[in-house]
């Protein structure tokens, strides 16, 4: 009996101990999570509460001083670059380890390892796009061509790993505890992968949709609805620019036969709409102080921990400050004692698709001209939490990986398209940033940009010596007109890219007469540029508003530049609303409810400020009208893109009776006004529903800007319903889920005067008071002081750590 009692008690005890050590379905192991000494409770401490005066970092040649200002922004003072990047890796990992690893797991298609089979399709897609393959080529490129960058990247990795090795169980970031896995060693490969991940985030293509549209609408209608240059083109490089180079000739094959199938495959995931950016620089001739001012605000998905982490990196030779990407070396958008630079996305249809004709089922050979070429098979082993690993065979051609085939998302057996993308070429973006961090002049800036391949960016520049510049840098293929706009035949060698545009022919401008340079993801150039330029996603509104403001302003101050980054002027509404009101006519004048809304719209000043109501009214009415106009296209049953807002408004204004507005199978011939009226009816229903359910329909309340944790299910770690204005197509591009992920304004006088802010906080730990503490300031359009600090400076120091 006694034995039984003991054995039962012991069994319960052991069973209990095991039960709380294991995950129960989605519930993480309870004891390691709840144990106050090791579990999540330990993540309640903010960084200043656990500050250490000294920490050991192996491999340093001299001690590195890290001074944290009151916002937990670290200022690293090192004796040389290798020490600097080692310390950067260490300090970044200290605040952002989980995020940097998670992002590279996502980039390498390894999310299934963490969350299980639910992410398998996502992982397969990531791998079939070949991001990790591109990073491997980048690694080979570094080994062969740039041992110096490799050495620095290795120091960075060693710094990250030193931190991982020092981690006590209590200090492990809380996401690891909840998801029940542990950090693995950092590698140079992961740093390179991160930059590929940025490409993936920023680059899209619509080749599939355009191929379908071309087949359905015909070339003529396609050109009408999707002109390659808009009527009011306001390009990145001023239209007056004279191209002073002899272009490389590109020969278009005389008869081009595109594969003419209707394609029902799913398109690749596209960058979220509203990811874009603004940057500009004004020359001293336009500013009050006579100093150039540079501004940059990249718009991305708004996430926590923030994509950006701000730092100052100082050696005896240079001192640079700004936004870093956790996992990559150096500052990505920032300034030093001599220059400032910033980035916006400059996509130019960087992805093309080739139809592959395999010799037989084995897929070992594919046709290329008269010959058969051999394929490579890359076996992707995808580990899955709680299951056996999944082996995925991806076929590689000389174009790139065959993304869709008989084993992946194929609705038809013959769907075999290879993806050609500059991301698959050995490249060295990391070197660009290492050099830019130390640049002193326009010449240094250009030199730094020469090694930059992808994702293509508009690099804005200003220097203390008074120069302002813009250069569109990326590795751009030489294309004949419309090459790569549609799916191409990989068996026909005439469809091959014919080479690349030399860096010297990439569009750029230095100190233009108008006294400013600017970019907002619009068309890079005007039609006089001698190379073919095409992308589906070019901006049509922010660029015009920005250039109009910069042209008008004189005696410019830093505060005005801050205000311009926060500018809520809704140019699309300004252009569309009068057209819509006139097309609506007098049909609704007798309805008092409709009249109330219409009066609000008519009284509107076109600013999408958070407290305004009219932006909500316009937004809903426009969405309903736009959907109705293009509704018939959803019946094609294949993926297509719809004409953009700009083109749609132009059609409505200039040819409201065009047959494009006609719906089939109705007795009448519809025009634009029928859609506007029907859209208005739907709008009335929607807005009244909203008022009944939610009450106030002011813009911020309707838009509900949310900054989401990288694991969307972790809603308590997200920040919801932020009171802020702006929206898509507005300079302050803050929409529901994306917006200004970093705002920076730098005045390059004798003393650099710098300001910055981002929607997040320096700490990646949701338990820290530094996790989301910048958000309120960001939402109000306020900034933090970002002036360079010296090691000795005393005021505003939170704490200081010496690494040795």
């Amino acid at each position, binding site marked *: 009996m006694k034995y039984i009692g*003991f054995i039962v008690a012991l069994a319960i005890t052991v069973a209990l101990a095991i039960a709380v050590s294991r995950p129960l379905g989605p519930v993480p192991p309870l004891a390691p999570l*709840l144990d106050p000494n*090791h579990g999540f409770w330990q993540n309640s401490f903010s960084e200043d509460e656990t500050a250490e005066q000294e920490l050991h970092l192996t491999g340093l040649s001299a001690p590195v001083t890290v001074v944290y200002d009151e916002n937990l922004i670290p200022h690293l003072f090192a004796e040389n670059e290798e020490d600097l990047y080692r310390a950067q890796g260490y300090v970044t990992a200290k605040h952002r380890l989980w995020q940097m690893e998670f992002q590279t797991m996502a980039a390498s298609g390894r999310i299934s390892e963490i969350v299980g089979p639910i992410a398998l399709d996502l992982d397969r897609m990531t791998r079939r796009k070949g991001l990790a393959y591109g990073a491997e080529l980048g690694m080979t490129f570094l080994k062969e061509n740039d041992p110096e960058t490799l050495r620095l990247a290795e120091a960075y990795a060693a710094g990250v790993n030193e931190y991982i090795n020092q981690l006590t169980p209590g200090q492990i970031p809380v996401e690891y505890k909840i998801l029940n896995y542990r950090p693995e060693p950092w590698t140079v490969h992961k740093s390179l992968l991160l930059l590929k991940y940025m490409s993936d985030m920023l680059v899209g293509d619509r080749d599939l949709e355009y191929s379908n549209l071309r087949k359905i609408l015909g070339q003529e209608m396609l050109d009408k609805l999707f002109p390659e240059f808009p009527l009011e083109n306001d390009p990145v490089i001023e239209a007056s620019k004279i191209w002073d180079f002899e272009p490389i000739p590109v020969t278009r094959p005389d008869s081009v036969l595109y594969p003419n199938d209707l394609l029902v495959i799913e398109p690749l995931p596209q960058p979220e709409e509203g990811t874009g950016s603004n940057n500009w620089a004004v020359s001293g001739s336009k500013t009050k102080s006579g100093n150039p001012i540079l501004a940059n605000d990249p718009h991305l998905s708004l996430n926590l921990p923030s994509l950006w982490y701000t730092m100052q990196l100082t050696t005896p030779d240079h001192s640079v400050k700004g936004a870093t990407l956790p996992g990559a070396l150096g500052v990505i958008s920032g300034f030093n004692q001599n220059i400032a630079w910033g980035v916006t996305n400059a996509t130019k249809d960087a992805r093309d698709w080739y139809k592959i004709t395999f010799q037989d089922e084995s897929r070992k050979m594919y046709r290329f001209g008269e010959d058969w070429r051999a394929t490579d098979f890359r076996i992707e082993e995808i580990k899955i939490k709680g299951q056996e690993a999944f082996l995925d065979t991806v076929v590689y051609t000389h174009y790139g990986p065959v993304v869709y085939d008989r084993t992946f998302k194929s609705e038809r057996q013959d769907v075999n398209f290879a993806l050609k993308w500059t991301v698959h070429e050995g490249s060295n973006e990391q070197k660009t940033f290492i050099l830019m961090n130390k640049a002193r002049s326009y010449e240094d800036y250009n030199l730094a940009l020469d090694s930059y391949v992808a994702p293509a960016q508009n690099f804005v520049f200003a220097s203390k010596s008074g120069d302002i510049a813009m250069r569109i840098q990326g590795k751009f293929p030489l294309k004949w007109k419309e090459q790569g706009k549609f799916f191409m035949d990989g068996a026909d060698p005439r469809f091959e890219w014919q080479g690349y545009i030399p860096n010297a022919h990439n569009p750029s401008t230095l100190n233009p007469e108008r006294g400013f340079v600017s970019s907002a993801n619009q068309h890079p150039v005007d039609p006089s540029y001698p190379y073919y330029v095409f992308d589906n996603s070019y901006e049509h509104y922010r660029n015009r508003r920005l250039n109009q403001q910069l042209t008008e302003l004189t005696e410019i101050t830093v505060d005005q530049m801050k205000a311009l980054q926060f500018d809520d002027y809704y140019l699309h509404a300004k252009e569309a609303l009068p057209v819509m009101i006139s097309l609506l006519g007098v049909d609704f004048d007798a309805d008092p409810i409709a009249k109330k809304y219409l009066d609000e719209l008519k009284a509107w000043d076109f600013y999408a400020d958070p407290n305004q109501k009219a932006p909500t009214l316009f937004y809903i009415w426009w969405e309903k009208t736009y959907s109705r106009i293009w509704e018939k296209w959803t019946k094609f049953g294949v993926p297509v893109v719809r004409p953009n807002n700009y083109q749609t408004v132009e059609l409505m204004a200039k040819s409201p009776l065009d047959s494009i507005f006609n719906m089939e199978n109705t007795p009448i011939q519809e025009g634009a006004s029928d859609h506007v009226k029907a859209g208005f009816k739907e709008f009335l229903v929607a807005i009244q529903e909203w008022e009944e359910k939610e009450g106030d329909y002011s813009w911020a309340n309707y838009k509900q800007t949310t900054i989401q944790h990288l694991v969307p299910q972790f809603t*308590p770690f997200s920040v919801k319903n932020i009171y802020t204005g702006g929206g898509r197509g507005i300079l302050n591009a803050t929409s529901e889920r994306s917006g200004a992920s970093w705002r920076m304004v730098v005045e390059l006088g004798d003393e650099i005067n710098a300001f910055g802010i981002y929607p997040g906080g320096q700490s990646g730990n949701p338990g820290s008071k530094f996790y989301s503490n910048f958000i309120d300031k960001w939402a109000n359009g306020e900034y933090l002081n970002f002036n360079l600090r010296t090691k000795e400076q005393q005021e505003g120091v939170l704490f200081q750590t010496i690494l040795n």
Partner: protein
Amino acid sequence: MRFILLILLTIGIVIFLNPFLPYWVIMILIGISSSLFGLKGFVSFLGGGLGMGLAWLAQALYISAQTGSSLPNKIGELMGLGSGMTVAAVTAIIGLLLGGFSALSGSLLRNLSRKTPDNVYRG
């Protein structure tokens, strides 16, 4: 008296050793301590359970008060438990169960050795 001592000893083990040792080593230590005290089964359960449960609760509340962090509330929401206070209570209950059953096993082990010396290695 021995009951109070067992509680205090358990609290001491958790406070001073748990920071360096995982919870399952703490359970073994509580079991061993309980076997030395020779209390009845249920009393041991209460002694070890209250000791570990209270110690975990106190530690959790102390960290909360010290840091003022919103993390307990966030974890509470994430686990569907409501507030951070509930999370602290769940922490305490887990501590109570782990400490309690460990102490119970220890006390029953001692019972075996005391009353049936034949079956125990050290008679």
